[in-house]
């Protein structure tokens, strides 16, 4: 497994990371433009371009126009050019189709790229005797073998150089046009009105995406390119709210999924073989594992996202519920015993709160720790701190009731129910605005006294 990590593995990771990062940069903008599936379309439609370019060179070589050496030399650039042409063509065609054919954008995309892909497959079959193109390689990528194809004697894989160049190009373009891209994606109308041709910027973005997809499909496969285009930026938008950071995060996540993917490709099959005692199982491709790794990172980002991740959501909800229970408890204690300071027991409180005492016990303990309650002989009394908190709450409750009573015609029960809910959401500022508007009332609609505003906290 990891013990026989070699230079080859390093190069695989580097090549894959470069490809993934170069995809993630334009992918960010596709995601923000809500055109993620465009990447899918482009990556499918590069197939006929590749095959045609391949066949063309083959023909030229057979016809003796170019020598074998030249053919080898120009093959890569030609494949690149062919793929880029059909890739961009598909984006352009589907836009044309949805405009003059008045077709739904998604459907136009579907029609164009499936047709082009089908044409590509057919071409491969037709040319099978002369050209050996494995459609599988185009689809799934072939990282493991292409890293052995090195540039001269440097030992650097050709693909790594290609992907690196694309990454540099994308970075450069990103830095140069960051603000133009931002404004034309965020608000095209505004962009046009300040003299930035939004549609042309977006066309350039499309061309850039096409070139990147083409350069990367060799490494990660034409289908999995879309994973690198969409998933890292999607993670990034979950993790940060700053656009420049979205770009960097996306690039880092892309690199991480390349590393994770290769590690998983080394570890997972071995593990499966051992766990299931099934030694015949084959190895897994790095490209596929990269997509899975990226997907896992996405799930992770979803769970841990600082602003709307699952954890954050549950934590906030839980905290709110806890606060409400705590405040209700204090309120009950205040109403029952503010004058008598009588002792309450968990069982009594449970009855009043309509909750089993064992559920209340941790809350009571917490309040004791916070110094809001005092435990005396098995019963609870409010401390000064607790009293102040309770007063604020009851003040909120009664002020809200007064406010509602003034503006709505509600029964006492309705008043109370609404106040029960909203007392927890009135912050001090709102509370005092309310009091101001009601001209500092002394009594609530039921005739109960409204506790005075708390003295500033510094006096405690």
């Amino acid at each position, binding site marked *: 497994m990891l013990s026989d990590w070699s230079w080859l593995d390093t190069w695989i990771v580097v090549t894959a990371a470069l490809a993934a990062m170069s995809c993630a940069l334009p992918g960010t903008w596709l995601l923000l433009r809500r055109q993620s599936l465009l990447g*899918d379309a482009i990556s499918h439609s590069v197939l006929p371009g590749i095959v045609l370019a391949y066949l063309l060179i083959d023909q030229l070589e057979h016809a003796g126009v170019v020598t074998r050496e030249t053919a080898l030399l120009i093959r890569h650039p030609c494949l690149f050019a062919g793929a880029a042409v059909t890739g961009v063509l598909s984006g352009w065609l589907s836009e044309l*189709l949805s405009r003059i054919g008045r077709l739904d954008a998604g*459907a136009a995309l579907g029609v164009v790229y*499936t047709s082009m892909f*089908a044409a590509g497959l057919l071409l491969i079959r037709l040319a099978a005797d002369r050209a050996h193109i494995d459609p599988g390689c185009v689809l799934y990528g072939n990282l493991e073998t292409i890293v052995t194809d090195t540039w001269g004697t440097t030992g650097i894989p050709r693909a790594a150089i290609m992907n690196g160049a694309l990454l540099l190009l994308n970075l450069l373009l990103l830095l140069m046009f960051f603000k133009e891209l931002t404004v034309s994606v965020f608000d095209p109308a505004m962009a046009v009105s300040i003299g930035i041709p939004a549609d042309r910027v977006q066309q350039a973005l499309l061309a850039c995406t096409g070139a990147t997809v083409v350069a990367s499909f060799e490494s990660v496969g034409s289908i*999995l390119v879309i994973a690198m285009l969409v*998933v890292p930026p999607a993670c990034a938008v979950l993790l940060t709210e700053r656009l420049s950071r979205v770009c960097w995060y996306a690039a880092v996540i892309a690199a991480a999924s390349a590393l994770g993917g290769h590690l998983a490709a080394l570890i*997972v099959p071995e593990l499966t073989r051992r766990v299931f005692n099934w030694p015949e*199982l084959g190895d897994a491709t790095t490209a596929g594992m990269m997509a899975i790794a990226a997907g896992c990172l996405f799930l992770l980002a979803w769970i841990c996202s600082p602003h709307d991740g699952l954890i954050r959501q549950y934590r906030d909800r839980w905290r709110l519920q806890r606060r409400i229970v705590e405040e209700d408890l204090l309120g009950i204690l205040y109403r029952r015993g503010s004058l008598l300071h009588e002792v309450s027991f968990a069982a009594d409180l449970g009855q009043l709160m309509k909750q089993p005492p064992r559920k209340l016990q941790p809350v009571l303990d917490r309040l004791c720790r916070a110094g809001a309650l005092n435990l005396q002989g098995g019963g609870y009394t409010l401390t000064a701190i607790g009293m102040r908190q309770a007063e604020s709450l009851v003040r909120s409750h009664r002020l809200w009731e007064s406010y509602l009573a003034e503006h709505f015609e509600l029964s006492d029960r309705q008043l109370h129910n609404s106040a029960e809910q909203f007392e927890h959401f009135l912050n001090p500022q709102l509370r005092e605005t309310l009091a101001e508007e009601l001209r500092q009332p002394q009594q609530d609609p039921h005739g109960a006294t409204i506790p005075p505003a708390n003295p500033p906290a510094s006096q405690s």
Partner: protein
Amino acid sequence: MSPWMRALLLQDYNTRVVLLGTIFLGMSSGMVGTLMLLRRRALVGDVASHAALPGVGFAYLIMERIHPGSGKWFPGLLTGAAISAGLGLLCSRGFARIRRIREDAALAITLSLFFGCGVVLFTMIQGLPSGQSAGLNEFVFGKAAALLQADVQLLAVASLIVLVTCVALEKEFALLCFDEDFASVNGYPVARLDLLLTLLVIGVTVLGMQSVGLLLVVAMLVIPAAAASYWSERLRTRQFLSMLIGGASAGLGVLISAAVPKFAAGAVIVLAGTALFVISLLFGRTGGIVWRLREQWNFRQQIGLEDLLRTCFEVLESRGPATGPSDWLSELPISKAELEAARDWVSGRLPYLLHVACYQGLLRYDAQGNLRLTSSGRRRAILAVRTHRLWERYLIEHAAETPETVDRRADRTEHLLRADAVEELEALLPQIERPMPVPTSPHETAASESSLLPRPLLKAEDQHAQ
């Protein structure tokens, strides 16, 4: 016998089986595809098919584990595919509910995640001794020729279920696609209908994988439906046509691939569909490009003719007050030069229009080479002038137009007024007496008096024409 004849005459038992199977598939996918296109979810099928891949892999591995050698059991693989496709769509729904992730991104993420899983599983399977020949690649690239009679039976039954469901729930689905909220308010179980439709998509996708391959099965959902949209604007007809086109492209594809050895059926089926789509795009009766161009051409020609006839009228009008109601328009000759001078013609436009007008019998040349209005030409000229002047009045009265600019303005839009709009104009301009003459021009024409063509003249012209 040539392979073409063999294929066309369905000599091979195998071809017959495959043909039948794929036609069933094409028909049912066309049916469902129309609905998905209307829901603007055309690419959901793509996600479903890509998401089905790991299911196939898992199913194979599990079956192989339980009973070595049984991994290729077709229904088992299909079940795996369906489950995993369903999971994929669920997943994409879940992702789309994250606030910052839009539907397109959710679909793309699901697609790549599941496909990645599938690719990994497939490469692992390739290591198995049975895996090399497992033919699981057929699920990716499709191999219609490998369909067996049992598969076709399955396809037929499934297609029948799809078709019957679509027909039975036609109006419910129509409502779902057109106005979900309305359907929901009216007590239709929208969520369940949506689920059912999704299930149909998954069914079609999974069944199609075997013959066209998962990469292309979305084409079966999208292309026939898109093609049918150029032929009809009624849902029922569109569904029927989509079914027909789906079936036809499947049939064509299978026949061609049977006749030409190297043509893989899946790709040819899709390309046959594409060909039908292009034909529809060009010649479709509702929204086809050729028809639209023709309509535009006709419209332009009609405008030109109306302009020409109106110019003729004005030329005649400018010669002075009419001597009698019926003769001043009819037989007076008009020279080309007069027409030329009366209006700014785009170069080459006037000769062309004259040619067309003569051809249509609106104008004729007399012996001196001058032009004369024929009776039908007269009638149309009067109508054109009438509409023009009414419209001018209307614009002046109701659209803050000035007499100076109104001619040009009216010129541009009067051709769009239809007969009922002209009637309405008359009603809106009460100060013009009825029966209504051609109103005088509100701006200076060459002959400023003149030109009240009484309405009876129109009648007379009508009778004259008959």
